[in-house]
């Protein structure tokens, strides 16, 4: 479980380490969460995110080189399917990976998670 309560909106991730994919709906706040985690990564190096537009700047494998990392969100994974699966599997032994994927079938054990959002809080369970 990770709580980022010093900032607004508050982010609460009530999950154990592992790989999670969101419910396959649009407009539930996933990309906003990705944006927030990237911003927060400069203040809290336990969290970060990755999206398709990052591909031209750095690789997904490079993201996992941060040994302090505990929570990663991968947005728009259908645009880079299969990338970094080995790194995701290794990281998920001790960290939480949240993935936005509508179509990719992961060759890993994956659990569905749920994101709820209010004006002041995002909760992932």
């Amino acid at each position, binding site marked *: 479980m990770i709580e980022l309560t010093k900032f607004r909106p508050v982010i609460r991730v009530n999950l154990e380490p592992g790989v999670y994919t969101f419910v*396959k*709906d*649009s*407009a*539930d706040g*996933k*990309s*906003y969460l990705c944006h927030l985690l990237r911003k927060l990564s400069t203040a809290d190096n336990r969290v970060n995110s990755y999206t*398709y*537009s990052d591909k031209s700047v750095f690789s997904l494998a490079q993201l996992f080189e941060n040994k302090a990392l505990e929570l990663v969100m991968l947005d*728009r994974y*259908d*645009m880079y399917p299969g990338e970094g699966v080995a790194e995701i599997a290794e990281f998920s032994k001790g960290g939480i990976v949240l993935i936005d994927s*509508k*179509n990719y079938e992961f060759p890993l054990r994956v659990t569905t998670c749920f994101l709820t959002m*209010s*004006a002041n809080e995002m909760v992932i369970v």
Partner: protein
Amino acid sequence: MICNLEVKGSIPLSSSIKLSYEGVAMSLTIYFDGVSQLPNLPVEKDVEILFMTFKLSGCDYDRRILSAIEQSSYKDELFFVDRFGSTLRVDCLSTGSKTALSLYHRRDVVVSGVELGMNALTETVKYCSVGSLLLPARNYYIECELEDVAIDVMCGGRHFASLDEFSDYMMEEAPG
């Protein structure tokens, strides 16, 4: 030349015919990746980039998509009001909404639906009667409503005028 078309909704099936300015019926055409014969149009895979190539017009379709997918409302070509009352730039819209809006405003390309959420696909089918959508070849769950909804969709060489029929097809017969 792109013409203005009526958009659809929960309307009686008998009034579901949508005509272009030439009087020719048009449809939202859905293709399956690796299965369907694609039209001679470029395929745009990155919807976030495609969305940056046009402006919203505030037409009925724009407003319906914002309401149905985002629970938001149109403000102007650059901004919308989100479900919490905040005014945000349209680039903050979900990728699913951007896909739905691109289909209507960029009929000169085939739009990739690989990032389309199930709710966005359902709302797109209900309201969009133009454009070309490329989906991964698999089965889809399209949520029906209590009363059938008139749609205008070409898929798998068939025309669908009923959301119920299309839902059955996507679940049972779509290549997957």
